[in-house]
């Protein structure tokens, strides 16, 4: 136990010695400070003492919802899961290359501690950076939400495990690359590339899903039109006075709708296949965006979103978008976290296996 404590203590000292750790922490403070300076009133936004008329006001949403959305979208969605995550990767990318460098690794491998334990403990210390950053950020956000938004929301602290989890998906890849290449730059750049790839897969899947829902709405809409036209046509045909001109027009219209339906169904079919394939690939990869999205799900519920959109969706596009949001929010957290953790375990086992067998 004292060995593990010593490695963690050393990791803390290492973080403490890195300027980037403190820079990131200060920037986190600035971001939370910015939250505290912005508020909303009946007219719109209020920045320190200046009123800025805006459609976002207390008539549109409550102050607490405003702060929650700011925390979720800007604090977690933008700052913690993008900028701070990049800074964290830059800070921690050197952990494994430094650890396995000649001369340093000899000093620890020659101690009475197993290689697997050493590897996993060192990996856990890499997550310490993010855990400390998010803990400080969440605590500050909790206070801002309480004092400024008037709501004491302990679920803000859910960001700590979820952001650490999100970062761990990337850090396990960084650890593997660090052990294999022994180069900080290579580990960092390849991890950023991997992140870009999984973000690309996520975006493709989301886009295909949205297109699929739009296509479904289109098929539904064409079906309704076709049904309507077919009814009119049958009424026209069964009328005592046959209006051949109208019958011709509706027959042509029905034929055209049937063509459109066939085309739309074909598109829907293609989109469904493409989405299934992308979803299959995505299932194997870690779900960074959706893991972070769980904070959003916990803090902002579907009713609040419906309330903000104010009215029932009118167009196919709006209906598809609402269906998309519901579908994405309905995805099981167990599926999101479970499949991502399976990936992480696989990468960690591979990295640990290489570390445990390698000659240094």
């Amino acid at each position, binding site marked *: 136990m004292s060995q593990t404590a*010593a490695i963690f203590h*050393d990791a803390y000292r290492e973080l403490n010695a890195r300027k980037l750790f403190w820079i990131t922490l200060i920037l986190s403070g600035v971001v939370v400070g910015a939250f505290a300076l912005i508020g909303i009133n009946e007219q719109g936004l209020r920045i320190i003492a200046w009123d800025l008329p805006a459609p976002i006001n207390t008539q549109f949403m409550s102050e607490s919802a405003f702060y929650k959305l700011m925390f979720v979208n800007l604090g977690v969605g933008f700052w913690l899961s993008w900028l701070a995550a990049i800074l964290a990767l830059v800070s921690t990318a050197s952990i494994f290359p430094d650890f396995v460098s000649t*001369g*340093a690794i000899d*000093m620890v*491998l*020659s*101690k*009475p501690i197993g290689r697997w334990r050493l590897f996993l403990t060192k990996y856990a210390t890499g997550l310490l950076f993010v855990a400390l950053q998010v803990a400080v950020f969440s605590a500050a956000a909790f206070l801002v939400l309480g004092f400024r938004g008037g709501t004491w929301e302990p679920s803000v602290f859910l960001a700590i495990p979820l952001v650490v989890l999100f970062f761990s998906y990337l850090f396990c890849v960084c650890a593997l690359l660090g052990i294999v290449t022994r180069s900080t730059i290579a580990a960092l750049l390849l991890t950023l590339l991997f992140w870009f790839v999984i973000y690309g897969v996520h975006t493709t899947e989301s886009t295909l899903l949205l297109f699929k829902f739009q296509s479904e709405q289109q098929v539904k809409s064409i079906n309704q039109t076709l049904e309507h036209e077919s009814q009119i046509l049958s009424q026209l045909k069964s009328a005592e006075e046959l209006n051949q001109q109208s019958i011709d027009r509706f027959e042509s219209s029905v034929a055209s709708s049937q063509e459109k339906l066939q085309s739309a169904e074909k598109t829907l079919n293609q989109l469904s296949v493409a989405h299934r394939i992308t979803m299959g690939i995505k299932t194997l990869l870690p779900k960074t965006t959706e893991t972070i999205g769980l904070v959003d799900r916990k803090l902002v519920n579907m009713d609040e979103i419906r309330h903000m959109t104010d009215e029932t969706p009118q167009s196919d596009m709006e209906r598809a978008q609402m269906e998309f949001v519901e579908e994405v929010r309905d995805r099981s957290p167990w599926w999101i976290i479970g499949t991502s953790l399976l990936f992480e375990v696989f990468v960690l086992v591979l990295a640990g296996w290489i570390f445990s067998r390698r000659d*240094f």
Partner: protein
Amino acid sequence: MPASDYTIDLHDVQKTYRGRVHALRGIEMRVHRGEIFGLLGPNGAGKSTLVKIMMTVVKPTRIKGTMLGKPIGDKATLARVGYLPEHHRMPQYLTGRQVLNYYGALAKVDRTHRSRRADELLATVGMTDWANKRINSYSKGMLQRIGLAQALINDPDLVVLDEPTDGVDPVGRREIRDVLTQLRDQGKTVFLNSHLLSELEMVCDRVSILVQGQVSQQGTIHELTAESLRYEIDIEGAVPPDVLAGIASARSEPIAGNPSRTRIILTGADPAVAQPMIDRLRQRQITIISVRPMRESLEDLFMRAVTDPTTGRSRPPGAVANRK
């Protein structure tokens, strides 16, 4: 000698790296308890590979043997071993004292004991005044001193040191040598890997010379240089031709830098070999400047071990590639 008296008892240690490079080709080595053992060899002979195998940093291709009575590779045994690698790198953000605490904790030394031990060792290696300064401000010699201290933090039964005096000034070297002899006096075993043959000669009880992944010679320096024992008699002037007649072990050579004198060399360890020659010289009233017993130095022994007898040149450095 019973096996339990060997701190290190290695048999058939082999290591083949990828690309079929045979770094070690069946090492047989025994290190006695309570001795200072020196490992010598040219660059690429496999010394560091052997040390790293003992310290579990490198995995052997084949090994039989024990260290402190436990099979090589047993992690728990490492709690009783101290190690200073050749090109060690300690965390630069730590102070000297923190380094000792950190590696002490990894070596399973409890907190109170390691704190007290750190103070003692800092004094032993002469680093008390620098204990609370970050090691990134240390000179190479200071780093070696702290490195040696961390190798001793767990009060080990076996200390494995790879080039411990590298970068250390003469005063520091003397102090390190003193530490090593103190360790031996306390019954500890010291396994020393160094290029500085004169240093090894001063402290080692036994040595092993590794050449191209195999043990070329092993034993006490006295045993290994026994063959080279001789008596040298320096005389004034040239040697009359009849003086050497009839003594097979005798030969003469000029003394470099002093052409007025000549040296007569008599091979053999027994002082009796020199007596007839002294008698002959005295009978001829030749002035004898000195008579002294001589043996080859460790450097001579080393050079003899690394020289290919067929070509007369030193063997090429590096490990041996597959010869099949």
